[in-house]
């Protein structure tokens, strides 16, 4: 990754971090309903992977998917408007935090049944092959998803059909409230199991945007060349609890401290300094991100509520919801 690319990645990560902070604050103000699953601390995976992907590749994410939507072209304004139930939201306020989707940019959805989207990514990769394109499909998922059946069904099918799909596990160490190591018999829940399905599995520092970009670029090239799927396990840590209801009191203080010192934004700043980028240049990037999110919050707040009649649209492709004649 060149210096300009790294700086762009840094700014995108800063934008995501600030958007997540805004989502948190808006929740506390009562402006965001339901729940949120924030990805602060995990930005480098979405941003690093996106830097390695093409705009026409497909991405499938989880209920913890704000960072993927933002990394794949959704704006902070449309994301925050969605969280605040505005008609201007990404999904017209029908999706909410757990379902941020921007199909036009290949962000084909955030799915809230753990692991359910892995077979969809396999299908999108299959479709790319059937249509003769060299598009990839990427499924981002948490460590908890590696213990459901669809994970194994997906890896096997992708392997036997040799499909261009990348399985990127964001191992943030916790399956909701429980350490993943307490419920999984292997040390690397995704990477260790990949070889059993005939798929290469590797581990990367998920907080290092450069390392993620390089790893995804490498496995993407292989998949595009027709060599089949790959599993990448990106080690990371979420700054918040599982969701809004979880203060994460179960996490040992020294563990939290250790991971906070390994913050993806700090790591990227260090790499920028090594490349000779001045602190003032980084500060300008921070300022741009701050200004964008600040404007986004105000614009999202100003968005109108959805027309109640929208509740009865969009079930069918004709736009309606009629089930009888």
């Amino acid at each position, binding site marked *: 990754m060149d210096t300009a690319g790294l700086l762009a990645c840094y700014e995108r990560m800063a934008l995501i971090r600030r958007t997540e902070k805004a989502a948190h604050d808006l929740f506390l103000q009562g402006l965001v309903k339901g729940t949120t699953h924030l990805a602060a601390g995990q930005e480098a995976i979405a941003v690093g992977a996106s830097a390695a992907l093409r705009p026409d590749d*497909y991405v*499938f994410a989880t209920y913890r998917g704000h960072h993927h939507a933002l990394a794949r072209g959704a704006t902070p304004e449309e994301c925050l408007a969605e969280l605040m139930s505005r008609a201007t*939201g*990404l*999904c*017209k*306020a*029908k*999706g*909410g935090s757990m*379902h941020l*989707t*921007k*199909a*036009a940019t290949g962000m*084909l*959805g955030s*799915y809230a*049944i753990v692991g*359910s*989207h*892995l*077979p*969809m*990514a*396999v*299908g*999108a*990769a*299959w*479709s*790319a092959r*059937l*249509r003769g394109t060299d598009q990839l*499909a990427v499924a981002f998922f948490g460590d908890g998803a590696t213990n459901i*059946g*669809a994970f194994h*069904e*997906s890896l*096997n*099918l992708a392997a*036997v*059909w040799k499909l261009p799909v990348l399985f990127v596990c964001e191992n943030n160490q916790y399956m909701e409230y429980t350490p993943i190591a307490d419920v999984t018999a292997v040390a690397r829940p995704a990477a260790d199991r990949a070889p059993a399905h005939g798929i290469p599995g590797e581990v990367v520092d998920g907080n290092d945007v450069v390392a993620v970009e390089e790893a995804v670029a490498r496995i993407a090239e292989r998949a595009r060349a027709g060599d089949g799927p790959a599993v990448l396990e990106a080690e990371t840590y979420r700054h918040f609890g599982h969701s809004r209801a979880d203060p994460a009191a179960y996490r040992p203080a020294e563990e939290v401290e250790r991971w906070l010192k390994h913050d993806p934004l700090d790591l990227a700043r260090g790499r920028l300094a090594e490349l000779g980028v001045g602190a003032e240049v980084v500060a300008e990037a921070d300022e741009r991100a701050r200004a964008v999110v600040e404007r986004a919050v105000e614009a999202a707040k100003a968005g109108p509520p959805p027309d109640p009649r929208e509740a009865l*649209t*969009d*079930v*069918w*492709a*004709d*736009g309606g*919801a*009629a*089930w*009888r*004649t």
Partner: protein
Amino acid sequence: MADVITYREAVAEGIAREMRRDTTVVCLGEDIAAAGGVFKTTVGLLKEFGPERVWDTPISEQAIVGAAMGAAMTGMRPVAEIMFSDFLACCWDYLANEIPKVRYMTGGQVTVPLVVRTANGGGLGFGAQHSQATENWALTVPGLKIAAPATPADVVGMMAAAIRSDDPVVFFEHKALLATKGAPPPPGHVVELGRAAVVREGADVTLVALASTVPLALKAADVLSGEGIEAEVVDLRCLVPLDAATVLGSLRGTSRLVTVEENPYQGGWGATVVSIVADEGFGLLDAPVRRVAGECVPLPFADALEEQVIPTVDKVVTAVRGLAAY
């Protein structure tokens, strides 16, 4: 083409017609390619269309339907087979949570034009885990269209409509009908989803049936005719969209209603039909409504036991006699 075609041949014929006219139509499922399907409903597809359009899968129901969804979202029209409808439970997340909801929860951004085909229903002695009529499972989920043809011509025509539909369709092929025969439909035959058929006219009672219960209702109508009771038989063809207008229209002529469904009485589609009639057609009724339905038990193995719990001609005749005398 032959003078007659079986229901099972009609499945492959219906798929083949669509694969010929649209290269985005592809098939996937367990044993569907070289083996031609365990019910021989995909015979000939591999030979004509090749392995790039007819794909054998592992026994992985979640991956089959999930992959069909992903492919449908990205430009294909997949036709996925789930071998027995009982196995829909193995991939129920996709039928209940993913496929029917994604358009809505993305505010209309995503279209999922796919067909999930499956062999449905009892009568063949397959026991409790290979014999259920499960169309009601799908009926409980907003966002799925439900087709259940009763004749070879309808299989072809409704398959065309299902594959061309931009909405997801669950296509129930009834196992007890696979060997039945009928005239092959002409080229370009399409039966619009949500259009019921009045397959026998009569002035005394309306029998509303679906798939395997259509021939059952017709046989019952013949018996009743010998007793001076003329039954009109409505083949619903689809549960979603539901052609309530045709049911109400028939009822205007007969004033009496019996639904005939194979699935358990509890929560059955007949209840939905009856509730619409109670709500919108109460004034048309000259008698109570009756539902002939399966018993609320798992399907037993022995013929003598299975017959006890799913609809039969005698059960339909008995129900109608009671109404006629009301």
